[in-house]
């Protein structure tokens, strides 16, 4: 029973980690918490649903969804955030803008696809694997596997590639990076694309797991992933992963032992505790910027 709950929590946690990475990426580059990220995740799930409905199969659907959602990420930056940066607005203005954008996306989804809960086909379902008394769903294994591969891929991009080097340079200092010949605007665009793409994958995985899609699915998931990002130390990639797993597992245990009504509270209890005890998060070092 405890192991069962652990498995449930880890699968959920991997998805939170994927969403949390989106917060961390954008925060790293722009020092901005992008609260529209939850809606971007819901958008990704809806796009996947539309393309799955066209029966090209799940892989092309996922690719379309990644491209479109990545483009939505870029559009949010170009239309809403870049003008604010150009005017040197206060950081709070950009923060509030992202909250506004989040509502715009959510309501557009409601207008176009209706507000009811919709069906999404189950991904990669080959029944359960039983080890002793613990039963692990193949869907859960699939979620963990896909998330792991993606997180490794993202780490590789950031740590080993040239564009990753440029991202890290921009993270350190915009102006200096720009003087060294890095196209800062392109790096920001690319970051938003990566954030959107990882949100699209997370949205598709979660929809395939629970077999439902609905417009405001991103709200709570987004906030929980944000807590995960803060817990790990916002802006730190492996921190987001550990944070996601901790939030997912504690949520699962809370639902099982405290009752389903407490599950959503756990993430926020963690968030408040982190902000009080160690505002830089688990992996944050002194001098890192706090949320």
């Amino acid at each position: 029973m405890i192991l069962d709950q652990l498995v449930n929590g880890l699968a959920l946690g991997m998805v939170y980690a994927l969403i949390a990475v989106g917060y961390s990426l954008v925060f790293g580059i722009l020092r901005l918490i992008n609260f529209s990220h939850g809606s971007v995740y819901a958008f990704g799930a809806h796009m996947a649903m539309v393309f799955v409905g066209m029966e090209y199969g799940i892989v092309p659907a996922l690719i379309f969804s990644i491209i479109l959602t990545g483009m939505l990420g870029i559009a949010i930056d170009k239309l809403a955030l870049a003008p604010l940066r150009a005017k040197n607005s206060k950081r709070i203005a950009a923060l509030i803008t992202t909250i506004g954008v989040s509502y715009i996306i959510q309501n557009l989804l409601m207008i176009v696809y209706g507000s009811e809960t919709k069906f999404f086909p189950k991904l990669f379902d080959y029944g359960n694997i039983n080890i002793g008394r613990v039963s692990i769903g193949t869907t859960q294994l699939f979620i963990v596997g896909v998330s792991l591969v993606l997180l490794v891929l993202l780490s590789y991009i950031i740590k080993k590639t040239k564009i990753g080097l440029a991202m890290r340079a921009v993270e350190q200092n915009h102006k200096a990076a720009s003087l060294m010949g890095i196209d800062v605007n392109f790096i920001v665009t690319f970051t938003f694309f990566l954030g959107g793409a990882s949100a699209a994958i997370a949205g598709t995985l979660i929809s395939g797991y629970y077999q439902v899609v609905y417009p405001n699915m991103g709200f709570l998931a987004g906030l929980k992933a944000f807590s995960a990002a803060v817990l790990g130390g916002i802006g730190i990639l492996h921190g987001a992963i550990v944070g996601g797993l901790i939030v997912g597992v504690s949520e699962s245990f809370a639902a099982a032992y405290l009752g389903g009504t407490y599950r959503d509270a756990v993430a926020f209890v963690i968030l408040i505790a982190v902000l009080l005890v160690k505002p830089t998060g688990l992996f944050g070092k002194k001098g890192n910027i706090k949320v």
Partner: protein
Amino acid sequence: MKKVIGILLVGILMMTVFVGCQSQTTSQESEVIKIAVAGPLTGDFAEYGTGFSNAAALMVEQWNEAGGVLGQQIELVVFDDKNTGEEAATIAERIAGDKDIKAVIGHFASGVAMVASPTYQEAGILNISPSASHPDFSGEGDFIFRNNTVIDIEAQVAVNLAIDTLDKKNVGILSVRTDWGTSTADITKDLVEKAGGTVVDHQEVVDGTIDFSSNITRLHSADADVIIVVGMYNTLGPFASQYKAVNPEIELVGFSNAYSQQLINLAQENAENIHFPTIFFHGSVEENVSSFVSAYEAKYGSSPSSLTAQAYDSAGIILKAIENAGTADRSAIKDEVSKLVYDGVTGETKFEDNGDAIKAFSLVKIENGQFIEVK
């Protein structure tokens, strides 16, 4: 600074003018008889509210084509309460203040309906909720009616389904944490014990939860054979899918507000063999039911659910009462409604002294992607 405040004030003024517009579009006084529908048109429960307004519009259209009521045309005024108490309270004030509105159909959730009903009672305007099933709802006053059964009667039928029809004794309960969900779950627990079953576990979830894995692990390890789900289709659908991945043998019993085509769309093959008690069965062979279902499907492209049918009858009851009373006076309508015996698509409806409708239940289950009646 003064300028800014000035602009803000003008803005607020404009807003109130526009908000007012909605209910004042055709203000040629008392040319028409107005009936209000209030329910969630946006948000998670939008389709229930949309069902209410669609059904009421269909009934009003049929009356208008036949010459209206008391020689006047009927106009429907629709309000969106988003299924929140705050919105419902505001809407109730607006309805109570508009003298042209003669009766109110609505408010969907019991908790929301009970926020609004004291205002209706105070203003002396007839309020029929097609869906509120909380035992205390109709006790708000003599203007408050429900065209739905009280929950303990429905819960008894659901428990009988689980224990007698399905012949299972180890009952698990999953309920949503709302006014309705919590009180229904308590009532159901008592009824299960009385019927000779055992409640092996009770799990409560927040409305809108989609991850039931922890709850399912608990219910499954408590060896439940049948789960009574106290929730809407958006809870029952994903719950059924996730439970059947763990235990394909599990039997599920829902309540009539989960009886919706949406449930089959959402849970697909996992919806098979879910049982419900329901007042209205859209596949019924009775003539008035089938003509209502086909008229509804032709107009809105979806089949009416149980609650939609109850909203349709609620509109019919109000119009019939106005006709019988011979006047559109608010309290005369109320007196007529309490005397009325109305033969509608949800069977014969008569209100008890406290404003509760008494109805007979049909048992329905899902087989091959269709709702069929259980004999």
